[in-house]
């Protein structure tokens, strides 16, 4: 029997003057530990000045495009959706 901890979504403010941006998710037993873990996991290289954590279960999402049936079937499920970091400018993409 395994005790797994709930999932938290993590938002980091990269520097003053910017919005908090979704960077990923992690597991933690409670909010205090979640914010501490987020510091270690997502700002190891000084990527942030402020962190928010939100229980993944507390997020309500719209469909990306309500009119498009392509997105309709899974609208009842809030799947967790880490977007990690903004794609760095110097990466050729995508």
């Amino acid at each position: 029997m395994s005790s797994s901890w709930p999932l938290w979504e993590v938002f980091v403010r990269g520097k003053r003057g910017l919005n908090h941006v979704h960077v990923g998710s992690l597991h933690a037993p409670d909010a205090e530990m979640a914010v501490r873990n987020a510091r270690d996991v997502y700002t190891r290289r000084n990527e942030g000045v402020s962190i928010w954590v939100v229980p993944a279960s507390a997020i309500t999402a719209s469909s990306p495009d309500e009119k498009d049936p392509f997105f309709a079937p899974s609208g009842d499920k809030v799947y967790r959706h880490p977007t990690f970091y903004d794609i760095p400018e110097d990466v050729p993409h995508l």
Partner: protein
Amino acid sequence: MDLEAEFERTVAAEHRVEPRDWMPDGYRKTLIRQIAQHAHSEIIGMQPEGNWISRAPSLRRKAILLAKVQDEAGHGLYLYAATETLGADRGDLTEYLISGRQKYSSIFNYPTLSYADVGTIGWLVDGAAICNQVPLCRTSYGPYARAMIRICKEESFHQRQGYELLMTMMRGTDAQRAMVQESVDRFWWPSLMMFGPPDSESANTEQSMAWRIKRNTNDELRQKFVDMTVPQAEKLGVTLPDPALKWNEERGHHDFGQPDWDEFWQVVKGNGPTNAQRVAHRRKAHEDGEWVRAAAAAHAAKRSADARAIGQSA
């Protein structure tokens, strides 16, 4: 509208599939398997290098190695998070790993036997991993692609530190140079195996290529790795242990010998030098941690019960 046709159109147009989009079951299952295997590889990969943290021969090397192994835990976390966007559960995936139901990269079933191995793993193993992973920054599934971008960025530093360690050792004593050559001799063939079996024997390639989950064939990536590594080896002053290795002017590529595929399949089937040890180590850490995870969960439940009681009495 036909969801499947829409999905195929999105993927063929190089657009990203996002978590709440409709996707074929096969795509979801293949992705979960591939990302989980990748996550497991990061986590198991902590062990062969972690083996040398306590013995690192300088404090600077100790800091580098500890930071690197820590990054691998972070990479495992990003990747497990990507599987969770597909509805997988990290706890389940850990169970699959420690029960042997899911695999990880076979390279980590080879032992690390000298400090030079820390450098060789950075240079050859991380180098091969980057060859495999860079194309995945353009993979069709959005969360996976984004995780890979961050991982590749950090991984390139890992490779650099490995190469720099080997260069430093090659400039050192004869004993150090011999140590580097011996390490490269041991890791060269297993590094070539990291790209998987030859295309003629690889089962999943075709569908994965169509879904843009995989972007190059095993043999293409292996050739690319060899072509990139040869000049690096020359600059380093080490000999790659393959008598068949030579430049082919006509092809514009290096010819090279084949790894021992029987050994490869032995290791994949669980009979490699450290398979049992690696899984047992991970299992022990997971099981020894169970009481800690349970305690933290119990504490959180008590606190939220307290908070509800306060709310009701107010």
